[in-house]
């Protein structure tokens, strides 16, 4: 088991980072730390996806001096998917940060449980 984990070192680290990001998201009460946890989770998923495509001793998939033999390049698909993924993670970070600014402006705190309690309190008043 440990030898297999050491062979797939990138995927092991990616999965550990995914778990850390997941735990930060659940554990931390500060909204900005939750967003960092979300970002760590998604970059870990992209590391996991990109490590599927790497093949030892092959170059980046850019055709150099006309060589189009399959054995010369690594798998281009994960690179394309992760490119899409990175832009998705910027988009949702932008939205979550905008929500954080609006919530802080409205409730003067970044602690999501405190905010929920204040919102419920206002509902009563």
């Amino acid at each position, binding site marked *: 088991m440990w030898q*297999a984990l050491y062979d*797939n070192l990138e995927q092991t680290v990616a999965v550990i980072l995914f778990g850390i990001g997941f735990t930060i998201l659940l554990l931390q009460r500060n909204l900005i730390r939750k967003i960092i946890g979300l970002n760590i989770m998604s970059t870990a998923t992209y590391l996991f996806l990109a490590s599927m495509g790497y093949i030892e001793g092959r170059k980046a998939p850019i055709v150099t001096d006309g060589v189009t033999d399959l054995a010369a390049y690594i798998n281009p698909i994960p690179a394309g998917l992760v490119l899409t993924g990175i*832009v998705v993670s910027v988009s949702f970070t932008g939205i979550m940060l905008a929500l954080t600014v609006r919530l802080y402006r409205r409730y003067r705190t970044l602690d999501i449980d405190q905010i929920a309690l204040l919102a419920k309190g206002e509902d009563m008043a």
Partner: protein
Amino acid sequence: MSKRRSDWEQRPQARFLRWMRDGYGALDDQITTSISQPAAPRPDQEAMEAHDILVGTHRHERELALDRLAHYDLQNWANTRGRKVLGRLYAVLALLLGLILIYFLLNTVAFMPRFASADVPANNEVIARYVEKGLEETGAINIVAGMILDYRAFDTLGESTVLFVAACAVLILLRIDLDDHGQPMQQLIAEESDDRHYEPKNDRILQGSAMVLTPIILLFGIYVLFNGHLGPGGGFSGGAILSSGLILYLNAFGFQKAGRFFTYKIFMWVSFFSLGFYGVAKAYSFYMGANGLHSGIPLGTPGAILSSGLIMPLNIAVGLVVACTMYIFYALFRKGGL
């Protein structure tokens, strides 16, 4: 007789029937009568005031008062010891869930195909065609750019739409609307979030370095954008570099100077034209491909700047959408508008 009648009142069927007939009001009467008898005296004033309303006036005020009492208890409980214990329990549970997740996923990674070996299932006929025939079918030297903008172009169309949706969502959240004659609608928020008084007033070092760096960054961004199909780079990274150059310029020279060439109207029209061009160009090539017609887009000689059919214009369109979105994110956070 009345004894039997009164305990009939208490029995659940009666209360259920009365609830069906009168709704919550009836149930509240039950609760209020039981509360108003030996109610434990609440020390502080707010509870007393809630209590007085309870006994007195119309039913819907009583209902509100009841909720306020319930919320008062919740508030009370919130900062007592009870919550800390529950908080710690929640933390332990979250940690446990994270560890279980890591354990299961590590277990899976052990059985995944070996890293960096050539005989993984992912090394199949799909990428054989991308790599071997990629150059002649899409004309792009950079096979990843060819794959993104020609083989799987629908994903990247969805991708630019994700950026456009994110920009609109942040616009909904942070933009301070201007009424007809240009004055911000919410006066107080506008002054508060307009942090030009925090801006460095002609900070010599920042402006000096921006004067040198901005043209270089923008030039590099344009280079990366235009050579998307020839080398690493392309729409996303080129657009991001362009927007970081614009943000540096905005930081150094303030909104007045930056507003000269980049206003909200320009943002909307640039997004409209680039996304519209991308949609129409790709719709044309999807329609042609789906019905087996040959779309007469020349692929040009590989390696030349004007090669690989639509990939270069599409890269520019995607790059513009990325640059505009990142720039308006920054401007909306800084000043709630352009």
